[in-house]
């Protein structure tokens, strides 16, 4: 893993909202073909970190490297242009539109003035087939008639439709039942197997250990550790999340004291 150049790398990024420093000197490496889990307690800075990566809240300072080259991302469109897509927790789907329309929302294909429905439908089907999605009856179904897992699938398929390289998933299974969680986790795994870099935020440790290749843990705005998943146990992750340290992993005690102040 370490011999590969990370597709996305953050070095010492900081972000403050007024007097509150939300991210402190955070380093993160994300690799193609790997699932990176981002864990941390509420308020640890997970959302701010992904919003920074997506360009919604640009970082105040620090380096943002994409494919080894420094880039400056200050709005979502720039992140999209690089191939970074975010699937937010609320999915941002339009219930009154069908699956194809949702996948192409804001980026419709047209021939002149007229929407090119045929090309869009074909590409949507190809993308879904590429992800081995077999749970949708028709791509012309309205999203309002879909289950939670199917909606998540549509949102993820939309994110990978644009030859994306990095897909960020914000708690994709939080609202799902057992069978649907299973479907989505399989899909997440397949994204990485297809060569994409995946960042997944999750509060479910079993899920994190099952699906991810490495785990990045945030503790009060600091990156406590980024460790290969196979070196971690359930209780070690919990310890990292709650105290910022576990054995010899995690933050240096001085930093911890500083963080606690």
């Amino acid at each position, binding site marked *: 893993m370490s011999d590969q150049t990370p597709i996305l790398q953050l070095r010492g990024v900081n972000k403050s909202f007024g007097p509150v420093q939300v991210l402190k000197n955070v380093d993160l490496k994300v690799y193609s073909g790997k699932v990176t889990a981002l864990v941390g307690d509420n308020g640890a800075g997970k959302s701010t970190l992904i919003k920074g990566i997506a360009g919604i809240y640009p970082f105040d300072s620090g380096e943002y490297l994409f494919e080894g080259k420094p880039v400056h991302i200050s709005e979502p469109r720039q992140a999209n242009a690089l191939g970074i897509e975010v699937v937010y927790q609320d999915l941002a789907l*339009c219930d009154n*539109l069908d699956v194809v*329309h949702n996948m192409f929302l804001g980026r*419709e294909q047209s021939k002149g003035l007229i929407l090119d429905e045929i090309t869009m439908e074909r590409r949507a089907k190809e993308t879904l*087939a590429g992800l081995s999605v*077999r749970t949708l009856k*028709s791509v012309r179904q309205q999203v*309002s008639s879909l289950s939670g897992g199917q909606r998540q699938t549509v949102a993820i398929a939309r994110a990978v439709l644009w030859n994306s390289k990095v897909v960020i998933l914000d708690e994709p299974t939080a609202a799902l039942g057992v*069978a649907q969680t299973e479907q989505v986790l399989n899909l997440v795994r397949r994204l990485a197997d297809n060569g994409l870099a995946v960042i997944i935020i999750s509060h479910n440790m079993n899920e994190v250990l099952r699906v991810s290749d490495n785990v990045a843990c945030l503790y009060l705005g600091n990156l406590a550790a980024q460790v290969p998943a196979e070196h971690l146990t359930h209780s070690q992750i919990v310890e990292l999340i709650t105290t910022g340290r576990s054995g010899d992993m995690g933050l240096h005690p001085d930093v911890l004291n500083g963080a606690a102040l």
Partner: protein
Amino acid sequence: MSVQVTDVDVPEAGDVGGIGDALRDYSRRVRGGEVGSLPAVLGLIALVALFSILQGDTFFTALNFANLLNQGTAIIVLAMGLVFVLLLGEIDLSAGFAAGTSAAVLGVTLTKQGWVWPLALLAALATGLVIGFLIGLLVARLGIPSFVVTLAAFLGLQGVMLLIIGEGGTIPIQSDILLAVMNKNMPVWGGWLLWAIVVFGYAAISLRAILSRRRIGLAGSATSVWIAKVVSLAVLFGGVVYLLNIQRQIVRPGRQTCDVVGDINQPVGCIPIIQGVPWAVLVILVLLIIGTFILGRTSYGRHIYAVGGNAEAARRAGISVSMIKISCFMICSFMAAIAGVLIASRDNSVSPTTGGAQTLLFAVGAAVIGGTSLFGGRGRVIDAVIGGLVVAVIANGLPLVTQQSGIQYVVTGLVLLVAASVDAISRKRTSAA
């Protein structure tokens, strides 16, 4: 990955089922809450049947059918504009007086200033665009609820109209072409030509869409469904054209009919022949086709549905929500301006009551009765036509049955309420699915 029990394969490409399948699919969607225009179509049939039974000799006549269209035209056009605003989940209460104000501008420029009619017409339509732009700006940029902005505009425009026309005045419209729109009919052959263009145009465009889908290997609707749709359109629209092409004047024995209206060499006291499709029908058809095209076939239309369905999702997808809102209010007031011109043409004049009274409520009622949701995100331009016909049938048929205007108000109010309930219930159903 293990194949899940719940997995359903994507249907094979090509011809999917026949009419039976299409009907089953439709009934499933209706039960799921996507009722669309179905209640309005059923209501229309029921109302026509009811009035025909109660007052057949006055209601179900060729003359009254033409009258009914004449009464409904302005409301239908207003409702078409309102569909765009309702799709966003907004409302425009000022559309009636936007129509009136535009008509007032038409009257003043045409009659008092002596402009040629195309210029006066342009001025009236531009008035609509300006009104819509200002309303849209206040709603989209300042974030004032559209209900309040347009209520203010409702009062304000009423005043503007009075100021333009002058207190208590009525301005006659003196332009043969503008008056012809609501008062003259197409020649009989013109009606059939229109029928042919509409039916064959629809058949060709829909067939082309089906074939190009099949060529690519995507599921398209079955040939039998296509034939059924084309035949129903041909029969339905053919029936309308046939009814409108009947001579509407009742000729008493001993009276002659004039061959050509307005010919000096006609026998004295002859009864003019009135027959043919009113030009207003052509106006509605053109607006219907343009509106349907914009909403259904362009990315702009798609974005309108997206903003109405989930504005936040639309914003994140890079759609300029405020641009969509402003433009929809402009379309609504623009259509209102057209409606204003139509009302002026029908009344041969503009007065401070043009576009007032129940005009707006009828138009909102028409859109909602036709199946456009008050909650946004659901609706089509044809809803305005179907709903407008329902409103026109009630407004036309009820006075034939009862003279009491009290009952007429109550019934119209109840119909609107029923339509809004259907909308609310179907919304509950779709969100529960």
